[in-house]
């Protein structure tokens, strides 16, 4: 268990939107999208849609799901499971914690 990386302030991510953290910072193969749900819970998923080259951090976040900004495939914020075509593969979730208004990311760790 690592201590995680402080990647953003909660206020940097508007409700219902996302923020991409570069792979140079996360040390993962893909960038990681921080996604703030409509109930203000923050989730983290691999950023690139599994269908085409689009950033899920630019997607529409609502009620537990993020909708890809290109072709609207939806992914579950909790576990990265794809909900509908055109994407057919799940994306990978990462553990994230909000402490005192700061967002801490644990790349590669299961939520």
């Amino acid at each position: 268990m690592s201590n995680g990386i402080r990647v953003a302030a909660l206020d940097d991510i508007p409700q219902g939107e996302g923020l991409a953290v570069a792979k140079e910072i996360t040390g993962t193969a893909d960038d990681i999208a921080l996604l703030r749900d409509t109930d203000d819970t923050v989730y983290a998923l691999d950023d690139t849609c599994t269908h085409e080259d689009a950033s899920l951090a630019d997607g529409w976040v609502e009620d537990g799901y993020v909708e890809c900004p290109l072709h609207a495939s939806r992914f579950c914020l909790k576990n990265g499971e794809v909900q509908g075509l055109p994407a057919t593969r799940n994306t990978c979730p990462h553990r994230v914690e909000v402490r005192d208004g700061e967002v801490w990311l644990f790349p590669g760790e299961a939520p």
Partner: protein
Amino acid sequence: MNVVVVGGGIAGVSTAAALRSQGFDGEITLVDAGEFPYDRPPLSKDYLAGTRPARQLALQQPSWYDDQRVRLVNRTTVTALRPAEGKLELSDGTMLPADRVVLATGGSAARPPIPGIDGERVHVLRTVEDADRLRPALTSGARILVVGAGLIGAETASTAVRLGCEVTLVDPLATPLAAVLGPELATWLQDMHTWHGITTVQAAVESFTDRGGHVEVRLTGKAASRSYDAVVVGVGMVPHTGLAERAGLDVDRGILVDAGQATSNPAVLAVGDPARPRGQARAEHWEAAQQDGARAAATLLGTAAPAPTAPWFWTDRHGRHIEAAGHMASAAETVVRGSCAEPSFAVFGLRDGRVVAAAAVDDSAAVRAARRMIDRRTPVDAGRLADPDVSLRALLRPER
């Protein structure tokens, strides 16, 4: 109960997927003419450009069919329905038991009755085979005429110019798509063709004449005919309704269906491009076909159908992503958010203080927001909608 889905496009595959996700435990058979069910939107873009291989067109991973217990009968067509006997007939002569049939038969690219339309150098684009036949013609420097500046035509023109072709795009409308995207955005899109080196012409085609090596094309209102190395005709599609007609189902410019996708025979449903809800037009869009599948599954299982949403589609051209939702034709006024001179920008169609349609270039969030405004009938202020500094998500939230 066993269900046979006829056709493996997005509508057919979505029907099978929705049946399983809604808990159906019976047999599902998916009959498809092709090698495997594939997605059509990339056919005019990455696949045509040669940057995406055929296997990446698959609508589902190969393992999905086993995982979901969907029996895929590929390279096969259905030749006759026998709903009264609870079966149907396949092209190899075998009979298949079918308590319920879902027709997802799609259609063919339209070839209007223009002299010379069946010539070897006159292409259409609907299937992988069409794309495979067209691609070798799109060589650098080739003179290509694209007929029809709707979605397929404009996307194909964009791909051809990217491959180095010399492209002319002809359409009878001065501003194609203005009725669905609004005049502001449609004008910008049409101009974008010119910026990318495409010659746009407002005309219709009178004739194609194959001169062996090239096609001579005569356009309405033009004195001289012009030569092209190849032509692509993208002027819509013709729904496949033959099976339904021969089975005695109600057909009128599409297979007529009710709100639950049932045809005039309750044992047969129809989804996707060929299905026409009574009193309405056929939808002909990717997501509409997907939603038809979910509705058909709900009807078969007697569960509640998902709530209808405003229609939505996208088109990708010249590296720009365009989305539209709702019915722009029903708008009383349009409001532009951002500047029409430069992406990203969005156009909202309003009526009686509510959003009825939206279209955007490189701003899918605006269209996703608008779609929810349409579905929830959210009252909106035109001035705040037009102001890029006002968050659209904030406009969606109920007043506190």
